């Protein structure tokens, strides 16, 4: 089997998704977690662009539209997450999630 260019990009998308997921679970600093989510998202977008690129005679516009929607949602998510992380820092003094914080009134 020859490695089609689109497949290379699609597999790279899977790889980015996995790297992001690892960092999201394993890292504690909130900025890193937010960046990890962005890396995961980029993986999905790369995968979508790769499958659009696969199409003949022109690139499929529908996954491109989906990526555009996805990017906008991801920008909003990052903005909201950063604002929330900032609040976490101002209320707890640290940029990490405390281990046990269920019972705090």
């Amino acid at each position: 089997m020859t490695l089609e260019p689109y497949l290379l990009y699609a597999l790279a998308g899977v790889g980015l998704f996995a790297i992001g997921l690892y960092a999201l679970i394993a890292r504690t600093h909130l900025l890193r977690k937010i960046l990890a989510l962005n890396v995961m998202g980029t993986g999905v977008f790369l995968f979508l662009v790769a499958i659009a690129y696969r199409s003949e005679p022109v690139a499929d516009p529908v996954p491109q539209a989906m990526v555009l929607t996805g990017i906008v949602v991801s920008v909003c998510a990052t903005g909201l997450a950063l604002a929330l992380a900032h609040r976490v820092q101002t209320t707890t003094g640290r940029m990490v999630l405390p281990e046990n914080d269920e019972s705090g009134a």
Partner: protein
Amino acid sequence: MNAPDGITDDTRLTPLRLIIMLFVLTLAGALGWAVCSLPEYSSGLAVTALAELSNSGVLNPVTAAVLNYRGYDTLLEIAVLLLAVIGVWSLAQAEPPAAFEPASPVLLSFMRIVLPLMILIAGYLLWIGSFAPGGAFQGGAVLAGVLVLLRLSNQDFAIWSHEVWLRFCLVLGLSVFIAVAVGVMAGGGKLLEYPRAHAGMLILLIESAALISIALTLAALFVGGRALSDEDSSSASENGVQPK
């Protein structure tokens, strides 16, 4: 452990992290295997999308997909943008502009050259979106860059201090989009079913309104909190300080 708020993070490979890594690698392997079994060529919806292009009111298939075929997705996406600003504003008040350093003369003269060009480019991207890559999101991102530069040079007090106008401009894109989407139903069509003859004009109308809202939204996310407006300051004096 490292300093509590430094960007540095503990990166040692503990047993727990090893397990997470194995789990993630398994997931990536399984997904990779699945991706390799994808059909080698598939035109997806490209053929259908091109065949309907002449009915979509624009010549760029991606713009047709974003604002016509899947316009309903985009409608809710504009709502997500507005929602993100409301969410951020509900969390915190913006840092007062005075917290920034006075702008350097280099930045100011750079901006004098670059800002008019950026505004021009934003308009150009909006206009060209109907037949080539471009559109409201791309133009809006460039326009947001203008606002971010103004912010960095501490020149944007006028924008963030008029909260009534700010709110109006933020909701403009979604309001026009909803008005058009529902308005075309008056002629007997479905939601977002533009009349063929006016599709191009209606899409440009939606995009122009969205451009302003997108630019302001992105800049508002950058600023990161609601502005201290007249209404806020009056309620703050009535009620004591805002919740911290």
